[in-house]
């Protein structure tokens, strides 16, 4: 009886070869996967949003608030109010206007310096890694020497000799800043060079340059991107540090560094001078770091689900 019922309840389904071979999970390319994982990371997305906001402020803000050098000696050190949302500084300049202008200066320093480093580092590291052998050893020794030079000291020295303009700052930041990326790229290239697909491409007659361009570099882009994101706050921070020593961008120009310096100098007195740039600065540093973290996690296939 029981057996009968059992058979009755189940029906046989004919074997469907097509259906069994169907992949239910949506097929994703590498970059689609990265973006999907990144989107799931709330902290990284909020950070990205903040970075975009800050970049927009840097680009368009000074157009709406152009008078960042305008002093008003009769309204100095005024607390935030309707007239001046973030108050005024010791010469009656509007803090909001200066902050917006400073955002532009500091972001320019951060992005431009790291972009230059990126270009130099990628080229240098790519060449060293690809050439290998004695050329590689020699090029890496040069990097060893540059890395051993304490970066901050050399920047201070450079800015003591040359005046603190955006150009000098960029030069100082790029003089030693590219080595990290160069090492990274070289390491990646070296590892990838041993891979079969590079070798296959070469065997099939692709030129060395073509292998480098179409196979090797694209695979190193991930770590490079992470490194790039993570070093921008470093460059911005260096400017702030140098400004504190009186070597960065000097007043009446505006940068986060000299705003922070003015703020901490006035500290327990005029709190708005301190906290407005400090909060914006800290949030930006944080955003770049969190976004960098998220990007790294997203790029790492092992971390991805």
């Amino acid at each position, binding site marked *: 009886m029981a057996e009968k019922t059992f058979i009755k309840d189940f029906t046989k389904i004919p074997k469907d070869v097509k259906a069994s071979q169907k992949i239910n999970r949506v097929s994703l390319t590498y970059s689609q996967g990265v973006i999907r994982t990144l989107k799931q990371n709330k902290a990284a997305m909020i950070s990205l949003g903040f970075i975009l906001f800050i970049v927009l402020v840097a680009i368009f803000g000074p157009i709406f608030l152009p008078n960042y*050098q305008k*002093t*008003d*000696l*009769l*309204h*100095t*050190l005024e607390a935030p109010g309707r007239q001046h949302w973030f108050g005024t500084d*010791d*010469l*009656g300049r509007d803090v909001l206007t200066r902050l917006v202008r400073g955002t532009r200066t500091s972001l320019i320093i951060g992005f431009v310096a790291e972009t230059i480093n990126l270009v130099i580092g990628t080229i240098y590291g790519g060449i060293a890694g690809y050439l290998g052998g004695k050329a590689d050893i020699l090029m890496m020794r040069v990097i060893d020497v540059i890395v051993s030079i304490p970066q901050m000291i050399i920047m201070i020295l450079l800015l003591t000799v040359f005046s603190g303009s955006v150009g000098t700052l960029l030069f100082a930041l790029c003089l030693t800043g590219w080595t990290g990326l160069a090492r990274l790229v070289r390491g990646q290239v070296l590892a990838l060079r041993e891979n079969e697909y590079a070798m296959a491409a070469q065997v099939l007659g692709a030129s060395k340059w073509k292998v480098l361009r179409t196979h090797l570099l694209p695979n190193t882009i991930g770590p490079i991107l992470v490194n790039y994101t993570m070093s921008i706050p470093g460059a911005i921070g260096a400017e702030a540090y140098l400004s504190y020593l*009186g070597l960065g961008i*000097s*007043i*009446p120009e505006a940068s986060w560094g000299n705003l922070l310096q003015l703020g*901490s*100098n*006035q*500290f*327990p*007195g*005029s709190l708005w001078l301190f906290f407005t740039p400090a909060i914006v600065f800290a949030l930006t540093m944080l955003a770049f770091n969190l976004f960098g973290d998220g990007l790294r996690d997203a790029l790492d296939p092992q971390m991805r689900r």
Partner: protein
Amino acid sequence: MKKLWKRALALAVSSTLLSAALTGCTTTAATETGSSAEKTEQAAAETTAQTAAETTEQAATETAAGTSNSVLNVAISSDPSSFDPAISLGGDLMYIFGVTEESLTRFGDDQKIVDGLADTIEHNEDYTQWTFHLRESGWSNGDPVTADDWVYGITRLLDGSTEVAYPDFNYEIKNARAIFTGEADPSELGVTAIDEKTVQFDLEYPVPYFEKLLTHCQHFGINRSFVESIGGDANYGTSAETTLSNGPYYVDSWETDNIVVLKKNPYYWNKDNIAIEQINVYVIPDESTQVNMFLNGELDIVDFSAQRLATIEKAGFEVSSYNNGRSAYLLYNVANEYLSNKYIRQAISTAIDRESLVAGVLKNGSTVADGFVPVSLSGADSTFRDLVGSTLTYTYNVDEAKKLLQKGLDELGISASDVHFTIMAKNTDEFTAVAGALQQILQENLGIKVEIETLDSTSLSTKRKSYDYDAYLASWGADFDDATNFLGSYEHDADANPALYISEEFNKVYKAAVYTADQTERIKGLGEAEKILLEDQAITPLYYTAQYYAVSDRVKGVIRRAVVPYLDTYFAVIEE
């Protein structure tokens, strides 16, 4: 439990390893630079000793019964760099000199002169010969104070044996200038030791205010035998050991850029009336740090600018402002290609809105300058300014300023956008802010480009002495209570003329005034000279400064004056 200990130990070992590694590398570095381990140890021992001393001091302060065993904490903003009165003229050092050195006369508890190391003072009728009878008092090494100290102290400033900042401060003394320029022998100087305790000054011209002049450090006595014992003039004042004091305190120790400890001079004549045993003078460049230290009870006296007023008042301290007898002005280097033009200088003066500067930037009771000599300086019966009135004609008027500028530009054949120069200023909050304001004002009202360079006082004085600046936002304080102190520097062309300014007319009028014995006529004459100086705009007066300060509750009797020393703790007591 045992296991836990093991684990802790493992962790401790691994971290010790780290520190061992680091200590290892530091030793390497030390040997590489040639400093032996022994010396490092010595330094460490010194630090420990000092810390111990500090602790006992603190304990002493806390348990002090009454006021006799007490320590006063004050701050200066830059290192003294030398205790030799010949070369050290920084405002910061004046406080230290005020308590470590005593001249023949000194200040009482106001701006009046009282007897110093001399207890009897005589002068002839036309004020050209002065005789001083010295008290029984001693140098901090026990040597008695003698008349020869002044013969030596002033001779060494003039005979080229040492570097001198302002030799002209002694030019009223007979033959002083001739000796300095090498035309007379040092033995012909008008300072004579009549006997061990009597010193006589012969002067070039009548100086009715000679007693006032003597309070300044360029008239201090120096102990000849001590200088010889340390190997000559070049070593004097370079360390605590090579400095000798005849005032109520002596320099007990001096750590460069850190602290100067002053202790009571046991041989000083009035030592029983000096209440405070020890003064710690900290070198703290940053005003905000000074204010924070004061609020935290680490300093007893603090000077501050207007933006910190609210903070200090909120903390419950009584805040005062005093007229510090300083005059702030723009000093031009007339060798500069743009600033050599008189009309451009006049245009700058006319473009500056001094009212806004005082009311908006300074906000500390400073007043608009209507001349060079500040309001606080004495004239004949009243003050100098009461007698002379305003001498500045180039006051704020933007249209006038533009006209004057155009005149200057036409003369040079350039346009306003070509004009650019740097204003050098001291890196204090006050001067940084004022320089920033000037930069803005000149850019807005005249369309000329101005850069700012802020420096600490040491490099500032180096640059000033070598005329390595375009314009200098300077502030001159009264070294002694007479207008010649302000105007004298512009008279001659050789020594310390800060602006390289030469005007025959000014020289003539000034000299005529100086040789006048009648005080009212003399002051009026000096007023005429000031007018010429400001017509030429060799300097552009900006404001007469006032200064906020606060004193901790435990200290009483601190004196602030419009003349050096601005801060005087001679009469101060500590009430616990």
